């Protein structure tokens, strides 16, 4: 994007979980940046580590199982201290907002919308009276497009539709006027027409507030519509990183190519066979040696099975972790 300092910078992040049979590293040497006012899409299939990366940034890895082994996370150039305790998570919550996939589980079902919103606001503006916070809450609900906000404040989460609940979550996430918004599959549980509404809302909020956004999704369509840059994750690593137009036009990594080709489009012939990636994503405790995609890759050779390719920086900010991308591009 630009040469100016990114708003969020994650370097060499390694994190994982202590499980019954030992430690499993879930995110392995992941680096990415979110430009000021820009949107980075973090794409991959279930279990690739995209959500865990986001939770690590937020300091929200489940404790005590979750561990950040190494890596730095910097917000507007200042490194964030390693996550410990709720207090720190709150600081992060203010400068980095987060929206989750399922708003019903993120909202407390026994509290009214108003109380939950005002509670969040009180953290950010401790000096203010409840009346002032209430007015601010109404203003926020208006901003996220909720009709009749005064009435909604008195309602419980179950009284709202899925789309409305997600709007409330977004209102809470932007309450602290964050510099970065992390959205983890915020539209996956929603119907497609409601998804369109929420994506429009996020775009508009981003324009109004100049927030950077880290958008986590498995849906390439959403990435194409919303993001400026994309990082593709596979089995805990970033395998490709590029501006969105470049990625869709010239995908380099065989995994990215397979992913893009396996989505039926409105212009692919009906009932034709879809391109597929053979096999399944390997379990994190049974990764193949060398390149993690080597056991599913149609182009893999002995080098791939022996040696893990590094994420190679290349011109035009198009980075790829594949031994053979040059040959494949030709």
């Amino acid at each position, binding site marked *: 994007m630009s040469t100016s300092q990114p708003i969020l910078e994650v370097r060499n992040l390694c994190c994982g979980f202590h499980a019954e049979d030992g430690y499993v590293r879930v995110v392995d040497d992941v680096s990415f940046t979110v430009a000021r006012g820009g949107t980075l899409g973090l794409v991959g299939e279930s279990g690739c580590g995209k959500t865990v990366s986001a939770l690590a940034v937020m300091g929200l890895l489940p404790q005590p199982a979750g561990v950040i082994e190494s890596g730095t996370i910097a917000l507007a150039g200042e490194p964030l201290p390693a996550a410990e305790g709720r207090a720190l998570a709150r600081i992060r919550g203010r400068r980095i907002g987060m929206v989750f996939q399922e708003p019903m589980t993120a909202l407390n079902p026994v509290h009214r919308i108003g109380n939950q919103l005002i509670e969040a606001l009180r953290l950010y503006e401790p000096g203010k009276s409840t009346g002032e916070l209430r007015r601010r809450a109404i203003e926020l609900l208006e901003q996220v497009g909720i009709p009749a906000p005064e009435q909604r404040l008195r309602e419980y989460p179950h009284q709202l539709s899925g*789309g409305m609940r997600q709007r409330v979550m977004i209102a809470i996430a932007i309450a602290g006027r964050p510099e970065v918004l992390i959205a983890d599959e915020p539209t996956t549980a929603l119907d*497609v*027409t409601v998804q369109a*509404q929420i994506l429009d809302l996020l775009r508009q909020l981003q324009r109004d507030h100049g927030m950077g956004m880290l958008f986590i999704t498995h849906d390439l*369509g*959403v990435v194409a519509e919303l993001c400026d840059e994309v990082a593709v994750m596979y089995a805990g690593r970033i395998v490709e990183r590029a501006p969105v137009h470049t990625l869709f036009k010239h995908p380099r990594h065989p995994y990215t190519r397979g992913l893009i080709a396996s989505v039926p489009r409105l212009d692919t012939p*009906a009932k034709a066979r879809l391109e597929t990636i053979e096999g399944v994503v390997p379990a994190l405790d049974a990764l193949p040696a060398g390149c993690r995609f080597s056991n599913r890759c149609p182009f893999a050779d002995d080098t791939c099975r022996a040696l893990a390719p590094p994420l190679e920086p290349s011109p035009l900010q198009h980075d790829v972790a594949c031994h053979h991308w040059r040959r494949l591009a030709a």
Partner: protein
Amino acid sequence: MSAPLLEVRDLKKYYPVRAGIFLRKIGDVHAVDGVSFTLDRGETLGLVGESGCGKTTVGRTILNLVPKTSGTVLFEGRDLATVGRREWRALRRDMQIIFQDPMESLNPRHTIGTILEEPFVIHGLGTAAERRRWAAELLERVGLPASAVNRFPHEFSGGQRQRIGIARAIALKPKLIVCDEAVSALDVSVRAQIVNLLLDLQREMQLALLFIAHDLSVVRHVSDRVAVMYLGKIVELASSADIYAEPRHPYTRALISAIPIPDPEQRRSRIVLEGDVPSPINPPAGCPFHTRCPFATAVCAERMPAWDAAGPGHAVACHHWRELPPAVAKEERDARLAGSG
């Protein structure tokens, strides 16, 4: 022309809503409210719509997994309401279902072998040795090793479990499979594998599929015809090429325009609908979509629009479909039609 494999006429399913200490009935959820369609042998009919539109209930009512309130379901010309218990048993072999989450439909305590042999046992087919062989053959047919018979459902990934669900559904060589969000929970790369498997099996076995899903790009890919549901009613039904190239109903247009396209170069106008789907308890009078429709007029709030033919095999239920501006620019329409050839 021979009779269709499946014919559904004016199917309705209402669930009573009760309240108060005497649980008096205060209304009905109109889950399915007068749905009619036909399905031919070897054909795929896609049934799309958003949560709560009644598409899942349609599938289950057809299979009699939930009893219908009214309407007629004909399978090979026979009215299923008049079929006796013994005949039902035989009919069950011809009609199967695949669910969204195979983990919930596979007994976690049974081995894959037991699960796959069960349909044969229930219908008294084959000897024990034959059933074991058939189970192994089914596994290989859906792309799993025959050795899987001794393993349990939790040992498999989501995609593999869906393969097991498919193996069970095709065990008795059915004529119709209801696929209820069968690929919705799967990752992109796995979803493509399962879609291919279903298409292969359909070709081999002349299977008719009722493909229920909310993912329109997948539905278009697998379906010959597509029915769009809104609030318990079908609002438009057409060939999958026509419905994407020339959607007539304002709801279909909004639905299609909301699909995110995996191509950043392609920008197009999106119709963003206001508000939410109304409650199916005492739904609005007139056209079910009029509360959100940008083109609604007074007549829409009063009368349910009748079916109108917008082209060969293209039915639409909208008072105003003739007056609407074109939904899709010409170049884009041509591209879509070319693609669906």
